[in-house]
């Protein structure tokens, strides 16, 4: 009798427990699914955001490409979007972009690579932990502040040193862009040099090579893909920079005959003209076409850099550090 009651009680309690446990388990499973769905939704909307960005730029560029024709758009020598009849030849803008980018790279690449070598190979680790963030800070400063620095200091200097009518020239823009691209080149190259296994360096030094011979004959060849990636990313950075160029390049939409003339790169053109263009006009769409060109060029440079950096990783990866 008593035993039966006990057994019943135990069974009862047991079944209540199982019920609650099952309920809890179901709830847990439900919340697991909910979280999973939420996270997947977030990832999906990130994807939608990023992909629609590409779609919209090309979709808005299409009317201009169709109306003007791709050949005229890229090779046309006159950019007079507001005259009557308007003319949309982007060659002067492309030439200006190329000129300031090449100028910037001639400054940024030697300084950036040599700085990266010094930081990664020569500096003791305590000094490195101070210097590296300082170089990163140079990359993090707002471009409008660089523009102000260029307008306030470098442009007047250029004007005085080269006796020019104006300091706002392609040359000035190259210097400012060079300073801005420098930390990008240095940071990526520094990563590449640091990823070369220690054993390479030690073996070379043990064979009697000097530090510089080790760097130039072992380290740089081993890190070559990463070095190229650093240069490409520097090019991408210089080409896409907008505000600083808008402020210091001078803004004349003609093919620059010399580095000491005002120029108007693609980015500056978009930023300067978009505010005054009626939405939906040919001029409006032609600015999207410029943005699409810019997108294709920077994406190509970034993609190539990414591929090279990955190659460096697989080349060296797996070796003893």
């Amino acid at each position, binding site marked *: 009798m008593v035993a039966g009651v006990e057994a019943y009680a135990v069974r009862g309690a047991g079944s209540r427990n199982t019920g609650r446990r099952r309920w809890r388990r179901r709830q847990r499973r439900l919340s697991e699914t909910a979280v999973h769905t939420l996270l997947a939704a977030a990832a999906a909307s990130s994807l939608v955001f990023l992909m629609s960005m590409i779609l919209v730029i090309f979709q808005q560029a299409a009317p201009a490409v169709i109306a003007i024709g791709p050949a005229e758009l890229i090779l046309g020598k006159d950019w007079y979007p507001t005259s009557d009849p308007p003319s949309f030849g982007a060659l002067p803008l492309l030439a200006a972009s190329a000129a300031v980018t090449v100028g910037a790279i001639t400054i940024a690449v030697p300084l950036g690579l040599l700085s990266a070598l*010094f930081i990664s190979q020569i500096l003791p680790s305590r000094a490195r932990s101070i*210097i590296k963030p300082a170089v990163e800070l140079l990359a*993090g*400063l707002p471009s409008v*502040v660089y523009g102000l620095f260029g307008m306030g200091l470098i442009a007047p200097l250029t004007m005085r040193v080269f006796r020019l009518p104006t300091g706002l020239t392609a040359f000035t823009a190259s210097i400012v862009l060079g300073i801005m691209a420098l930390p990008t080149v240095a940071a990526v190259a520094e990563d590449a040099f640091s990823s070369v296994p220690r054993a390479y360096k030690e073996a070379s030094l043990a064979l009697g090579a000097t530090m510089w011979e080790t760097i130039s004959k072992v380290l740089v060849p081993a890190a070559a893909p990463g070095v190229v990636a650093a240069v490409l990313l520097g090019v991408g950075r210089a080409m896409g920079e*907008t505000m600083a160029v808008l*402020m210091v390049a001078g803004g004349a939409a003609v093919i620059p005959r010399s580095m000491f003339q005002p120029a108007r790169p693609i*980015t500056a053109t*978009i930023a300067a003209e978009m505010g005054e263009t009626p939405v939906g006009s040919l001029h409006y769409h032609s600015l999207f076409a410029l943005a699409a060109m810019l*997108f294709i060029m920077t994406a190509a440079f970034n993609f190539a850099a990414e591929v090279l950096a990955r190659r460096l990783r697989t080349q060296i990866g797996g070796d003893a550090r």
Partner: protein
Amino acid sequence: MTATTIKHRKRTQTVMLAVMAASLIITLGFLVALLTFIGARGLPVVSFEFITQMPRRAMTTGGIMPAILGTLYLVIGSGSISTLLGVATAVYLAEYAHNGTIVRLIRIGIDNLAGVPSVVFGLFGLAVFVKLLGFGVSILSGSLTLAIVVLPTVIRSAEEAIRSAPQSYREASLALGATKWQTVRYAVLPSAVPGILTGCILAVARAAGETAPIMLTAATFFTTRLPSSIFDEAQALAYHIFALVTEGTRPEAQAPIAYGAAFVLLALVVGLNAAAIALRARYEKS
């Protein structure tokens, strides 16, 4: 090997070391020159009144309070959107996703968009948020545009931080009977928080300084009143600096204000960067 070749090799070594050191000194010299230049011109302008007062007499005198406020609104707006979306995406990519088509597409998108010039994002924001969705030139449009500019960076750094959490944490948690989400929430994320936070702070610093994306979507130069809702346009520090030196009517009166505003913006950006660096240093030590 003769003594002269050894001497020659040693001399090359010395010269090249000096060249490398000089390069680094020039690089750091640029940083020092820029900070000193803006500091020397900007610091004398900055005062309590400069930071807290409205501009007066058509932006030729007075303070820059509306621009500071506008930058804060844009930074808070874009920061919260990009952090929520970016970190959730990163958790999904690092912990949940199998390497399928969608994940590959997101990776391609992130890789390609991280280096796209910010002015291109500005055009996108103009076409979609300002025109298509009808938000107009507003804090909302600007915040959304800035959020997309920094989204790839946030996703990348957060994913890296989550992936670097030790695998043994996940295994221990799962072995104790925790579910997937419990494992992520209580074992993985706590150890990834400093890394995630560093990435988010750097993203906010970048958003605060970006000009091209907001000049078409959110920013205005002349205002007499403060924005009252997210559908209002606003002044912003970065755009204000640009407008003062390029569109100003009286350069001699407006240039000092631009330098003062640049000093305030630099203080904000350098402060945020320093916080991120300090955070990362502490995290790497432990």
